[in-house]
């Protein structure tokens, strides 16, 4: 029947957020006065009316089944009047008005495998990408590396004993859907070999001028292969960024033997004390070693623990390294300094040391 045909709806945007705010937030919107963290994973916000909101923060793997979504919904109904939220680092937060429900909620969350923590001077959940679960260009998996690293560092999620907060993130290739380039410690999947041009496929699926223009180092030029238009790669100019592969499926770089992981340190986005900074290269290459990536886990753990043992209070990883200097960072961590640590891309000269402010 014509009158039952629903009109196709488009461009309505997301639902208005007010529909999802608990009454205590609507009543105190813009009126919060201060917050306290009485224990790891619990934040208490107090409003100028005296109202108190208790947030319980739990870890999440980001990848959730609909069954787990329903479980969170059930917990929200049981403990926080049906309201909850997620954080920018994929944690789940329950918004309680009754402090007597905090303990039973934490017990239930821990029982279903979602530890509570990630507040204050802790390691919060890792921002990360899709990896082998969904991506065509990944140089490593994402969820598996995160799981292995966080299993090892779980104690720092559940406590607040570090000198400052520390933000870990993972991106499985240089596209950085996870935008890890300003993290205290970034784990970055890398390719280490030039693309292999599929000359049969290329003229059918790629626009050659786009492929040529995509290369940041001008390593790609038009050519012909067996009379058909294609491209050739000047391999010594290639730094394996995979931008050509993004615009052209006929230039794959993925390689199970030579893909791997690099580790970057000292970035931050907050303006607290020092300005936001990029992460810098600490370890150029570690092998892909699933399912638990022990080399990556141990390197990250070592950096966290040496920072924790040496940093001043409130000092983020980048601030600590700026104070002690990079030579001392490499010495303390035992990480080998190599030619690859020295920048050779644009503006590389700005990273050379131009003083004798050196420590011996």
């Amino acid at each position: 029947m014509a009158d039952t045909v629903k009109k196709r709806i488009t461009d309505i945007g997301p639902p208005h957020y007010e529909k999802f705010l608990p009454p205590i937030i609507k009543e105190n919107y813009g009126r919060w006065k201060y917050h306290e963290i009485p224990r790891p994973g619990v934040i208490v916000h107090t409003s100028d009316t005296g109202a108190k909101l208790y947030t319980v923060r739990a870890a999440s793997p980001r990848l959730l089944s609909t069954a787990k979504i329903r479980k969170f919904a059930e917990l929200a109904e049981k403990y926080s009047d049906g309201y909850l939220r997620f954080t920018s680092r994929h944690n789940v937060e329950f918004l309680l008005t009754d402090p007597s429900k905090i303990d039973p909620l934490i017990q239930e969350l821990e029982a279903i495998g979602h530890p509570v923590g990630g507040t204050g001077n802790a390691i919060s959940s890792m921002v990360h990408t899709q990896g082998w679960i969904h991506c065509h260009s990944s140089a490593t998996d994402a969820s598996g590396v995160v799981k292995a690293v966080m299993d090892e560092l779980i104690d720092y999620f559940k406590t607040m004993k570090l000198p400052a907060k520390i933000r870990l993130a993972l991106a499985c290739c240089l596209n950085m859907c996870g935008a890890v380039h300003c993290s205290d410690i970034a784990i970055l999947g890398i390719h280490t070999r030039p693309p292999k041009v599929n000359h049969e496929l290329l003229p059918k699926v790629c626009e050659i001028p786009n492929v040529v223009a995509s290369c940041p180092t001008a390593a790609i030029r038009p050519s012909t292969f067996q009379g058909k238009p294609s491209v050739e790669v000047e391999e010594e100019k290639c730094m394996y960024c995979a931008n050509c592969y993004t615009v052209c499926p006929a230039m794959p770089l993925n390689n199970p033997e030579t893909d791997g992981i690099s580790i970057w340190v000292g970035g931050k986005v907050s303006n607290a004390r020092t300005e936001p900074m990029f992460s810098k290269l600490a370890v150029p290459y570690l092998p892909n070693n699933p399912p638990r990536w022990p080399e990556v886990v141990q390197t990250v753990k070592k950096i966290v623990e040496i920072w924790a043992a040496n940093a001043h209070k409130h000092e983020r990883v980048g601030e600590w390294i700026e104070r002690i200097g990079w030579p001392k960072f490499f010495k303390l961590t035992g990480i080998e300094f190599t030619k690859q640590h020295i920048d050779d891309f644009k503006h590389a000269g700005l990273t050379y040391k131009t003083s004798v402010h050196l420590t011996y």
Partner: protein
Amino acid sequence: MSEQMKKYETPLLDELEKGQWPSFVKEIKAAAEWNPMANDLLGLLERSYREKIGHWKHGGIVGVMGYGGGVIGRYTDLPEEFPHVSHFHTMRINQPAGWFYTAEALRTLADIWDRHGSGLTNFHGSTGDIIFLGTRTEELEPTFEELTQAGFDLGGSGSDIRTPSCCCGMARCEWACYDTMKLTYFLTQHYQDEIHRPAFPYKFKIKCSGCPNDCVASVARADFSIIGTWRDEIQIDQEMVREYAKNGVDINKEIVALCPGKCIEWDGNTLKIDNSSCRHCMHCINVMPKALAPGKDRGAAILLGSKAPIVEGAILSSVIVPFVKLDDEDSYNDIVELIDAILEPWIEEGKNRERIGEFVQRVGLGNFLEAIGLDPQPEMIKHPRTNPYVFYENYLEEE
């Protein structure tokens, strides 16, 4: 889904069910109990773990009618062995601002996805959307219809305005210097066409942070970064400062010495701040949230251009508007006007896959400011140029 599902042995993935951190493998297995797509994903992922390589083909253009964005096409390169992930497209669903939900809304989303997809999600994707992970082309339109009936819509993907996102702002933070959720909702609604129909040289991301702590990393992850700040005096409760000192905060060491503007003094009784030198870094406020608060004359600074490395290297956003009030509809419309002014020269002259930050560096910030009608201000730079290679174009007009 009554057919008998293949049972995959997953010895490598099983290792990732161990340990205290929540296991994504358990989540996939939970969905794989009843969903053939999740089941084949499990088998395919085990294969990747064994072979150390992904098994996804380069995307493809799929979507819902009339939209160019919001769906990422994905196909496995092993469709014979894993037929239920021969298509495994992702849908990006525009999250509610601040990522707040009711239990009812979450169940509605879960129900829709159980009917049409893999039973697997991300809460949330890196840009902020709810991610529905994996479905077939023919399920896209029915999923979209149910989503819109439930009041949800797709987010951005490709060369469009990506789904704007924000911190929880005034909903649950005393430091919010403007209403991040309200502005994000306003901009998202205003730019529906630009979010859903890619027409730019490349992506354009907008992120709203309520204070300089920048919890949504807008300075690193957004082309257009709106970061809350204030321009009057930090509010001080001296009694509470003394309380912090009494409870173990070493104010000289932890606050005074770490202040980047060197504008704080503490004599053991009174905290004095020379606000004219305050850099609004938040450190002192972060350490003593019960004693200090941002001032009352609040607004935001606007920065432009951040991005990850691809193509020309990573860039942090840089200041284009040092301070703007954001407390009424007019001020929101001014933001829209500024965004439109920024988009215009970039759409016109930007190269394929050139982000706005790269475009500005190519044409020069000075020229770009001229094109969008902003005056150069010293707040926009770290320092003036150090080279004498200065252009004087005036003579061209004089001749």
